């Protein structure tokens, strides 16, 4: 008989906290001997601080956050690891209806590819400049987030300098829709359900899911302090197993309705179940007057090795931190980034379950899991990639 291990995990109200909620609510954690307590948090900074001081053993974390903590960028240096990913994709870029109208005048067509949409946005940005209007303001959820990097990647590839041509601000997910309604921001990049909520209440139009910018893109991780993981190796293993099985449960279409009802509760995401179910079932409604359309591979909670903590994901995040001036390249940091995502711990936990595991820990990001501008990220050619951007 396994003794029960108490684990406290912090999370932010977003669709991709689903595997954690399911691990608790559907008994996967209990079955692995984990007595799981979930604590809803209101800001990413709180997640980080409460992990540091030990209020949380582990947390629903932005992938780049774990790296920032390990490297000590912007805050304390606390070696942090990610023994698993909590899924792939799930984000979108939404603009105010007013900005969408301006983009449409410049040729934007709903549902078209990010290149065409970005070109229309660029024309709208230039038109504003000529008219002497203030630059557009875009929001993302945290400086060290896939959202920040995906938004910047798209803007830059379409000829818009994210630091000069637009203003980029941080606004936490639950406040985004109101900020757009009040005209404080013209667009945002966030995870579901907040894009669909903006569309449903009639304040925004979804420009593109970010999976059209980077297919099978890395997103949240299960993060914990390295020191905690070293002291509790069996708990890490049990937790990874429980969350992995929960993520598998989330993928099954017959569970989607139950999952949306679970997450809709105020103590979890607190958004209407119908809106949550869109993202869960890989659908998006782009505009209030449109019907939901299928978006293949929009959000993967488990499929396609979605929980595998690829070293190449960590390295791509690090490349973007350097690209956008958050940190300067250093070989020491590179080694620490490599040690932040921990495929070895994932393998250790899941091999006994007979889980399907990839052969390598790292892969070339591009091609099948490609970027919309056809660039390829080869983690073995890290510095070459930096020079090219």
């Amino acid at each position, binding site marked *: 008989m396994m003794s029960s291990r108490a684990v406290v995990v912090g999370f932010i109200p977003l669709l991709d906290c689903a595997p954690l909620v399911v691990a608790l609510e559907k008994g996967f954690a209990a079955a692995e001997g984990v007595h799981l307590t979930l604590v809803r948090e209101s*800001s990413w*900074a709180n997640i980080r601080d409460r992990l540091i001081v030990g209020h949380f053993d582990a947390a629903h974390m932005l992938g780049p956050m774990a790296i920032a903590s390990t490297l000590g960028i912007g805050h304390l240096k606390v070696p942090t690891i990610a023994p698993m990913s909590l899924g792939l994709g799930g984000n979108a870029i939404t603009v105010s209806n007013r900005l969408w109208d301006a983009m449409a005048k410049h040729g934007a067509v709903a549902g078209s590819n990010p290149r065409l949409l970005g070109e229309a946005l660029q024309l709208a940005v230039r038109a504003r400049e000529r008219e002497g209007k203030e630059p557009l303001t875009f929001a993302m959820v945290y400086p060290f987030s896939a959202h920040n990097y995906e938004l910047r990647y798209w803007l830059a590839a379409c000829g818009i300098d994210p630091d000069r041509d637009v203003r980029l601000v941080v606004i936490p997910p639950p406040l985004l829709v109101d900020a757009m309604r009040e005209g404080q921001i013209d667009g945002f990049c966030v995870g579901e359900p907040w894009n669909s909520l903006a569309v449903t209440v009639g304040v925004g139009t979804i420009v593109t899911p970010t999976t059209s910018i980077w297919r099978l893109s890395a997103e949240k991780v299960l993060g914990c302090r390295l020191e905690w993981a070293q002291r509790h190796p069996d708990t890490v293993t049990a937790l990874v197993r429980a969350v992995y099985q929960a993520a598998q449960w989330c993928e099954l279409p017959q569970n989607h309705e139950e999952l949306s009802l679970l997450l809709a509760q105020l103590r979890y995401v607190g958004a209407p179940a119908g809106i949550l179910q869109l993202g869960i079932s890989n659908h998006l409604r782009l505009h209030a007057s449109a019907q939901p359309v299928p978006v293949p591979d929009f959000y993967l909670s488990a499929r396609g090795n979605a929980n595998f903590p690829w070293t190449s994901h960590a390295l791509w995040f690090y490349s973007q931190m350097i690209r956008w001036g958050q940190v300067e390249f250093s070989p020491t940091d590179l080694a620490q980034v490599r040690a932040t995502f921990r495929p070895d711990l994932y393998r250790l936990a899941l091999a006994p379950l007979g889980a399907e595991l990839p052969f390598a820990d790292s892969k070339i990001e591009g091609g099948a899991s490609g970027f919309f501008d056809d660039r390829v990220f080869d983690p073995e050619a890290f510095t070459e990639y930096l020079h090219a951007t």
Partner: protein
Amino acid sequence: MTDSKTHNDASLRLLIVDQNVMRAAILEEGLRESGYVNVTVVRDMHNLMRRIVDIDPDVIFIDLENPNRDVLEQMFQVSRCVRRPIAMFVDRSDTDMIEAAVDAGVGAYVVDGLRKERVKSILDTAVSRFNAFNKLREELDQARQALDERKVVERAKGILMKERGLSEEAAYSLLRKAAMNENRKLTEVAQSVVTAARLLR
């Protein structure tokens, strides 16, 4: 930061960002009592960044429940119009200070260059004030709970008096006897009477 400000502690500009009026007032009072004269409270989250640029604070306190913390952090990391405060604490080894602050529910951002001893005493004031507020809130919650419990006992008594034609005293002693026999709290028994009555209605 100008040198004169570093040396003259009383003139340090302190900013409190808190939507909770009472807690902000308690913290403001504490800081003023400690001799800081430049204390500003911001409750309105609109144009937070503009306000901060205008106030140009040396230390910012924010309630940890406030999701706008993330907005602040980014300002410090990338903004060119705000001087760069260091996130939260003076000394990177000071996890005790962080822990005390997080426990109390207060976050602090300190402009780089402020003397460590000063920051510690300002932060200590903030932490003890936040703790005082939390204690007050607990007491308030307890008082409210006591009131709710009394209400439920009153309601259960009323139901027994009406349904069984008992006097108030007899109704109360019946409830108390049931509680003693079942080894439960009086309010729990009263609550089950109220619930049962509602179901049977």
